[in-house]
């Protein structure tokens, strides 16, 4: 029997095979590309993580908070004259326009998150609805926003908006890193540091942590719980708006009424992987998910493996460490 196994090694024609030379050849580009998309997952993941930390609610409609921001980016940039071709504007005005689009996207996403909280979740909280009701409401809200966008903007994705020509900047081991990738990763890390510091150091941040730890005691200590909840949703919305700008930068044609769904699932997985309720975990989870998915698909030969690999790793990590890699909850983080 053993002999039989030995003379029949796994051949390249089997449905699963490992292409190690390809992984070695593509290692660095897979890493940098994974980090770029991972940074976007991470930014969106903060919205899931913060709301979960404060309310123990998985806000499934957060993917729509993101896609509203993406629509804002496309609409603002098209109004400013951006289109499918690379813009011929001077650099300074491109930067100004992008900053304007970023701010408007943040506002749009934050406003969506705010309205969502007021319309969908707050009335339920007032009536002490059971946890499951929130979950179903979240899914319902997600569909409601998706199809409202569909009715207004139609089924087709928005025409591509090119922000600037990606320029090669570094050459790392023969792999070109372009300006888009650098801007996205660094800006995402900065935003995450700011968010982390906001939660750890400011008075409002302390309020968020207090509510996450024990909402009743926090209320007794004079924390305005409702206000904290609103702020939490808005912070998540702002980061989702930023993620939207970076996403459109990478995928100019990705803005479609249901275009947030897949990213939302990935970002949620990133939040769980890093440790749900943990802001640093969200970024770490996002980056890891991006990289692992890329390694996995190259190792196994085709892109259809991306999610299989990413989610198998997620399950394995949770088996060993059920609270995620960084584990700590929002309430327990100290200044």
């Amino acid at each position, binding site marked *: 029997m053993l002999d039989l196994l030995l003379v029949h090694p796994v051949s390249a024609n089997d449905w699963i095979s490992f292409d190690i030379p*390809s992984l070695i*050849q*593509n290692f660095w*580009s*897979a890493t940098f*590309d*994974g980090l*770029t*998309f991972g940074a976007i997952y991470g930014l969106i993941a903060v919205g899931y993580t913060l709301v979960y930390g404060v309310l123990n609610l998985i806000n499934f409609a957060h993917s729509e908070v993101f896609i509203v921001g993406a629509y804002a980016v496309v609409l603002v940039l098209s109004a400013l004259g951006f*289109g*499918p*071709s*690379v813009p*011929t504007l*001077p*650099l300074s005005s*491109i*930067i100004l326009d992008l900053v304007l689009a970023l701010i408007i996207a943040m506002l749009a996403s934050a406003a969506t998150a705010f309205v969502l909280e007021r319309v969908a979740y707050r009335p339920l909280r007032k009536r002490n609805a059971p946890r499951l009701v929130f979950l179903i409401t979240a899914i319902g809200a997600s569909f409601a926003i998706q199809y409202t966008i569909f009715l207004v903007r139609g*089924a*087709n*994705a928005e*025409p*591509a908006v*090119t922000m*600037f*020509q990606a*320029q*090669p*900047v570094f050459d790392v081991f023969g*792999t*070109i890193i*372009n*300006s*888009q990738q*650098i*801007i996205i990763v*660094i800006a995402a*890390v*900065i935003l995450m*540091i700011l968010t982390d*510091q906001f939660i750890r150091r400011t008075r409002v941040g302390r309020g968020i942590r207090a509510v996450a730890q024990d909402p009743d005691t926090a209320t007794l200590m004079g924390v305005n719980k409702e206000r904290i909840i609103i702020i939490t949703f808005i912070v998540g919305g702002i980061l989702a708006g930023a993620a939207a700008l970076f996403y459109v930068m*990478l*995928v*100019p*044609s*990705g803005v*479609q009424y*249901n*275009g947030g769904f*897949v990213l939302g699932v990935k970002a949620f997985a990133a939040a769980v992987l890093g440790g749900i309720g943990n802001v640093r975990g969200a970024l770490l989870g996002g980056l890891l998910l991006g990289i692992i*998915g*890329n390694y996995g*698909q*190259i190792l196994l*030969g*085709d*892109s*259809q493996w*991306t*999610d299989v690999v990413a989610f198998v790793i997620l399950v394995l990590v949770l088996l060993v460490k059920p609270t995620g890699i960084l584990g700590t909850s929002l309430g327990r983080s100290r200044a």
Partner: protein
Amino acid sequence: MLKKKVLTSLAIAAAAGLLMSGCANQGSTSTSTSASKINIPAITTIQTPANAVLPAGDGKATCPAGLTLGYIGAETGANAQLGINIYDGVQLALDQHNKANPGCQVGFKKFDTEGDPTKATGPVTQAVNEADIVGVVGLPFSGESKATGNILEQKGLVHITPSATNPGLTTNGWTTFFRGLGNDAVQGPAAAKFVTGQLQAKKVYLVQDDSDYGIGLAATTSKALGSALIGTDKVTTGQKDFSAVISKIINAKPDAVYYSGYYAEGAPFDQQLVTKGYTGTFVAPDGVKDDQFIKLAGNASANAYFTCPCIPGELIPTFESAYKTSFNLEPGTYSIEGYDAATILLSGIDAGQTTRADLLAWVKSYNKDGLSKHYKWDTTGELQAPTVYGYKVENGKIVPIGTIG
């Protein structure tokens, strides 16, 4: 604590610096990355049948009130535009028919599948249970056609697909399924011949999606490509991040990439390819051939060629002008196929075939010219003598470059 602050400010400074350097030399590079050294001229006329059957008929048709044709297929969903092209074609045929024949007013009902095989069963069941529907144009995509052919078969409802090209669809023993164009057993080899012949590609990389259509077409194409095929990859429906696939392609340095799938993924794929520095040609089949591809891929689309068993309806003057008047748009991919399919059903109704069984028999024995081509099916529902056209992107528009097989 201090260390953390230093790190933060360092990161910010570095970011600001990179932002500047990243964009600094922008503007200076030329934007045209398309490396299509081969120039295949666009064609401006095509040969179409002169005595085509038209929806208007002789204007004297009478039929009982309450007869309806159905369109079942995508109205929403990621690839909705292909469906919209079709039902606009059907709508045009119906409008012309009803206007010319006051004695025979045929209704039109649309059922939305989102182009998704998992969602198509519901709308199809609904359609077959509506007794007034005697004939159907649809379903547009191969996956949903495969999933629902049995339901239509059981209710004896004749349906002509204007666009589903998976060869396996006619091997199910269905008697109600008719294909209004060539299938991928014809398109695949034609595409391979086009890429290695006219486009002179020595090395071809093939990427397929996970749809029945994409898988089937990739199989026939890669077989015909033979040794010119240097690598393959598979992507998923809804995928937007193609970076890992692209990294492999850039390393393999192909002359052409053939993408076997739909435009919703094909467009961002081509755009990311070009952004990452790919300079070869991008060739894709009918599922990608739509103006949406150009809108979504932007400038990158300049490197694209298409293969399609569809007829360029925009080169049939009478059809083009009528379509434009009705919808204020140029006819899209499959508009003419949708129009012809509806015309066949309408001419049956005009000839007194007003039950499902009669209309099915009518289509089965049909042997006449349509506006785009001659329609006569074999016993499995395949058209005899289908044609494959080549198309390219020129100045932001898709233009036909003649038959390729």
